[in-house]
C-alpha cells in the first residue's frame, strides 16, 4: 500500500438526478446564462486546436466571448486529430438498422468495459447526431452514395452501420472544418490566435484557474495570459511510451502542469494498443504508423514455428508456420478483438518467434487472399494501405507478407472532470482526449472524433457560460504575486534544464522511459514488472535532471529545450501510470493484469473492488500520490463480463 495513499471518495455532483434521457436538457436549463452583450467582456483561454479545442474556440467566439487560443504547431490546422483515419460514430439510424441513441450509449459503456460514467456517455450519444449536421453544414466532404445521401459503414465489432467517414482521412476533414470555423473567428477578431506558443504552466489564483504561462517558441519569450477560465484541449499522453502513433510533438505538459496545480488525473493506466501497426525498423525509429484494422478481414497472421527462424517467409513451408490466432481462437480466428490480437502477437514474440528487425513483428499474409480473390480484387479493397506499407518499408505486400506489431495509439485516461467537463480546479475545463470522461477502460473505434467534437461544439460552451455567470472575476495583472511566482517557477525550470549540460540527449532519456513503460506497463502488466518499473523510473528521472544535455539558450528557437521540458513531465507521468496500473489489480479494457485473467486468457474484471474511476491527486515529485475513488454506478447498462463470442 506504500506506493499510494487513499483519500476521500469523490463524486460528480453536477449531473442532475433525473432519468438519464433528461439529464442534459435539465443541466442546460439549470445553467446560468451570460447576457450576449456581456460576453465580450469575458475572456477564455483555449489551449490546443484539435477537434475539441478548435471546435470550442470557434463556438465560444461565435457566442461572443473573447477567446485567446494557443497551439505549439505553426498553424491550428496541424493538430494531431488530423491523422485519425477511420470515421465518426453518430446515432442517426440512416440505415434503419436498429440504431438509436440508447444503443450507441449501450455499446460505448459496454465497449469501455464498464469503467465510464453513464451520464456522460449518454450525453455523448445524444449529441452525436448534431455533430454530423454541423460538419455537413461546414462543408465537410463525407463519403456519399450515388443518390447524394451520406454513406455509413460498420466499425469495430458493432452490429449497426453508424460510422460516417471521408475515405481514410476522416480526422483531417473534420479538423479542417473546425479550423475553418476558427479561422472565420480569427478574421473577425474574436479569437486571438497564438500559434507556435506552448503552455508552460497554469495560473491558479484563489483556487481558480485564471490564466497560463506560455513560451513563444520562435523568440523564446515567456508571457502570461489572463482570462476568466482556461480550457485544456491538449490531447492524450501516448507519447509517454516514446514510440506511439501520436505526432512527434504531442505531449502531456499542459495536463501534467494542471495536475501539479491540483487537477486530479484519472485512470492513467487505461491506454489503448492497436494491433496492426508497422513494426519498428531499427533504433532510429521515431514514431509508429497505424494501418487500418480492416486488413485482418482477409489477411492471415502467422509466425514461424521454430524460434529464431530467419528464412524469408516464402522459404518457410506451410507445416512450419503457426497461424496462432486461428489455432488459439478457432471461432474468431484473425478477427479477435484488438486487445487479444495485440497480446497474442506479443506472446509469440516473447517466445522468440517474432520476425523482422529485433524479432518484434508477426506476418500478415495476403497470399491466400490473392489466390482466392485475385490480385485485382485485393488491390481494389486494400490498395492504398498496401502502398502506404510499401512506402514505409520498401516491401511489396503483393509479393511478401506484411509485418505488423502492436503500438500505443490512444489514451482513455486524462484529467478528471465532472459532468460539466470541469476539473477539480474551478475554472479549468478539460475536453477531448485530454480528459478521462467517456471511454472508460477502452475506446471503441470512431468514437474519439465523436467525443472531441461533442465536447468542443456542444458540451463545453453552455457549461463554461454557467461557470462565468456564476462567478465574479477580480482583475488580475502580471504583478499579482501568484502570477509572478508561476512565471518564476516556469522560467527557473527551463534555466535549470539548460544549465545541466550533461552527457545524454533528451531523446535517449525519452527512449529509455518508453522502453521501461512498454515492457512493464504495456500490453500485459504484472505486479513484479510494475514494481520493477517503479524502482527504475525515479532513478531515471534523477539521472535526467543530473545529466541531460540541452544545447542552446532559452531566448531563441530551441527545439531541444522544448523536448526536454516535455520529457521532464513524461518522466513524472510515467510513474503515476505505473502506480495506477499496480493499484488496479483487475484486468479491464486496455489494462491487462496477468494476475487477473480467465483460464482462456481473457481479461477478468473485479467489479466488487474496482468499479470506480481512480482520480489521483498529485503527491509531489517523487512523493506518494493520493487516490480519490469515484464509485461508478450502472443503473442502465448492467454490469456483465464482456463477451464477443
Amino acid at each position, binding site marked *: 500500500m506504500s506506493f499510494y495513499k487513499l483519500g476521500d471518495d469523490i463524486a460528480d455532483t453536477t449531473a442532475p438526478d433525473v432519468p438519464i434521457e433528461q439529464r442534459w436538457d435539465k443541466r442546460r436549463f439549470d445553467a446560468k446564462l451570460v447576457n450576449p452583450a456581456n460576453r465580450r467582456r469575458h475572456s477564455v483561454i483555449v489551449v490546443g486546436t484539435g477537434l475539441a479545442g478548435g*471546435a470550442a474556440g470557434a*463556438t465560444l467566439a*461565435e457566442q461572443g466571448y473573447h477567446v485567446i487560443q494557443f497551439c505549439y*504547431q*505553426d*498553424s491550428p490546422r*496541424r*493538430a*494531431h486529430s*488530423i*491523422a485519425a483515419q477511420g470515421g465518426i460514430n453518430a446515432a*442517426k439510424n*440512416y440505415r434503419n438498422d436498429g440504431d438509436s441513441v440508447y444503443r450507441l450509449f449501450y455499446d460505448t459503456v459496454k465497449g469501455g468495459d464498464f469503467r465510464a460514467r453513464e451520464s456522460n456517455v449518454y450525453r455523448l450519444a445524444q449529441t452525436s447526431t*448534431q455533430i*454530423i*449536421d454541423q460538419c*455537413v*453544414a*461546414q*462543408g*465537410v*466532404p*463525407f463519403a*456519399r*452514395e450515388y*443518390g*447524394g*445521401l451520406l454513406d455509413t459503414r460498420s466499425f469495430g465489432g458493432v452490429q449497426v452501420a453508424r460510422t460516417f467517414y471521408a475515405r481514410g*482521412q476522416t480526422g*483531417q*476533414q473534420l479538423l479542417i472544418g473546425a479550423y*475553418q*470555423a476558427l*479561422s*472565420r473567428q480569427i*478574421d473577425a477578431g474574436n479569437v486571438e490566435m497564438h*500559434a507556435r506558443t506552448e503552455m508552460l504552466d497554469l495560473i491558479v489564483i484563489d483556487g481558480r484557474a485564471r490564466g497560463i504561462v506560455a513560451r513563444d517558441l*520562435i523568440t523564446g519569450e515567456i508571457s502570461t495570459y489572463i482570462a476568466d477560465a482556461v480550457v485544456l484541449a491538449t490531447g492524450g499522453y501516448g507519447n509517454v511510451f516514446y514510440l506511439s*502513433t501520436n*505526432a*512527434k510533438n504531442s505531449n502531456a505538459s499542459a495536463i501534467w502542469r494542471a495536475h501539479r496545480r491540483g487537477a486530479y488525473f484519472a485512470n492513467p493506466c487505461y491506454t489503448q494498443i492497436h494491433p496492426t501497426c508497422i513494426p519498428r*525498423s*531499427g533504433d*532510429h*525509429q*521515431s514514431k509508429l504508423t497505424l494501418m487500418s484494422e480492416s486488413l485482418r478481414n482477409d489477411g492471415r497472421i502467422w509466425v514461424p514455428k521454430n524460434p529464431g527462424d530467419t528464412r524469408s517467409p516464402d522459404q518457410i513451408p506451410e507445416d512450419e508456420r503457426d497461424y496462432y490466432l486461428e489455432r488459439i481462437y478457432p471461432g474468431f480466428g484473425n478477427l479477435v478483438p484488438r486487445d487479444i490480437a495485440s497480446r497474442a502477437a506479443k506472446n509469440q514474440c516473447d517466445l522468440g518467434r517474432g520476425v523482422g528487425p529485433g524479432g518484434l513483428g508477426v506476418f500478415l499474409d495476403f497470399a491466400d487472399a490473392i489466390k482466392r480473390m485475385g490480385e485485382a480484387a485485393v488491390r481494389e479493397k486494400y490498395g492504398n494501405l498496401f502502398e502506404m506499407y510499401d*512506402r*514505409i*518499408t*520498401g516491401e511489396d505486400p503483393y509479393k511478401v507478407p506484411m509485418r505488423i506489431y502492436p503500438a500505443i495509439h490512444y489514451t482513455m485516461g486524462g484529467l478528471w472532470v465532472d459532468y460539466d467537463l470541469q476539473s477539480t480546479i474551478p475554472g479549468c475545463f478539460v475536453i477531448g482526449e485530454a480528459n478521462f470522461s467517456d471511454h472508460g477502460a477502452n475506446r471503441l473505434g470512431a468514437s474519439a472524433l465523436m467525443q472531441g467534437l461533442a465536447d468542443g461544439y*456542444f458540451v463545453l460552451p453552455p457549461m463554461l457560460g454557467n461557470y462565468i455567470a456564476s462567478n465574479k472575476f477580480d482583475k488580475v495583472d502580471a504583478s499579482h504575486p501568484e502570477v509572478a511566482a508561476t512565471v518564476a517557477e516556469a522560467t527557473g525550470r527551463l534555466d535549470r534544464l539548460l544549465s545541466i549540460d550533461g552527457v545524454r*540527449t533528451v*531523446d*535517449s532519456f525519452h527512449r529509455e522511459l518508453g522502453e521501461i513503460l512498454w515492457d512493464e506497463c504495456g500490453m500485459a502488466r504484472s505486479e513484479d514488472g510494475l514494481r520493477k518499473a517503479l524502482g527504475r523510473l525515479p532513478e531515471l528521472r534523477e539521472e535526467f535532471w543530473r545529466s541531460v*544535455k540541452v*544545447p542552446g539558450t532559452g531566448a*531563441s*528557437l530551441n*527545439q*531541444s529545450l522544448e523536448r526536454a521540458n516535455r520529457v521532464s513531465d513524461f518522466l513524472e507521468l510515467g510513474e503515476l501510470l505505473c502506480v495506477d496500473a499496480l493499484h488496479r489489480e483487475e484486468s479491464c479494457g486496455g489494462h491487462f493484469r496477468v494476475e487477473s485473467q480467465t483460464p482462456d486468457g481473457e481479461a477478468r474484471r473485479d467489479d466488487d473492488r474496482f468499479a470506480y474511476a481512480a482520480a489521483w491527486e498529485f503527491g509531489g515529485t517523487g512523493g506518494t500520490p493520493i487516490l480519490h475513488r469515484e464509485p461508478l454506478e450502472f443503473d442502465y447498462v448492467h454490469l456483465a463480463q464482456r463477451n464477443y463470442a
Partner: protein
Amino acid sequence: MKLTLRIWRQAGPAEPGRMVAYEVPDANPDMSFLELLDVLNERLTLEGEDPVTFDHDCREGICGSCGVVINGQAHGPRALTTTCQLHVRSFADGDVIDIEPWRSVAFGVLKDLMVDRSGLDRIIQAGGYISAPTGSAPEAHSTPVPKPIADTAFDNATCIGCGACVAACPNGSAMLFTSAKVTHLNSLPQGAPERASRVLNLVEAMDAEGFGGCTNTGECTNACPKGIPLDSIATLNREYLRASLGRK
C-alpha cells in the same frame, strides 16, 4: 550507407545563411528522411553543436508540418510523398544530398529549414470557410450532394497546407493552395451563398501576402504530395471571373 548532407544553416530571420556539409556514415536505408536528420541532430547535440531546426509533427504525411527542398525538389524525388514519408532507401550509398528550406518571398526563413507559412492561414481566414455557426445546421440529409461533386470537394479538401506548391513554383505562387480551397467549398451546395465573396477575398488575401502570380508551369501539382490537380486552378480562374462579372 554513407551520405553527405549539405544543409542550409541560418541562425535567424535576419542572419545570413549558408550550406554546411555533414557526413552521416551510418545511415540506414529503412530510416525516414526525418529520422536521418534526427540521427544527425543527436550527434550534433553531443558534439556541442546546434542541431538542425526543422518543422515536423505527425510523420505520417497528413499534418503538413514538414517539408524541405531536397536536391532542388520540394519534398524530394518521390511523387505523392511528403518529406516525412520519404525514406533513405530512395538514395544511394555515397550520395550528396542538398537540403534547403522552402524558398519563397512569402515564406521567410525562421531558422535553418523552418519557414513562416502563416500567410497560408491568413488566406483561409479571409474567406476559406462556410459561415455555419455551431447549432445552426439543418439536418444533414436535407441537402443531398451528388457523389461526383462530393468527390471533387473531397479531392481538393485533402490539401495539407504544407506549402510545397509555393516552394516549387518559379513565381512563388499560392494558386494551387488557394484554388483547392475555392474548389472544395464552391463546389458544394452549402458553399453557394458565399461563392462570389469567397473567391474574391481569397485571391485578394493571396496577393496581399506577397505570393506570386500563376503562369501555368504546373510545378505545383507535380510537387503536391496529395495530388491536387492543375484543373483546380482553372476552376479558381473561372470562379474569379464569374464573381468579378457580378454573376450570382
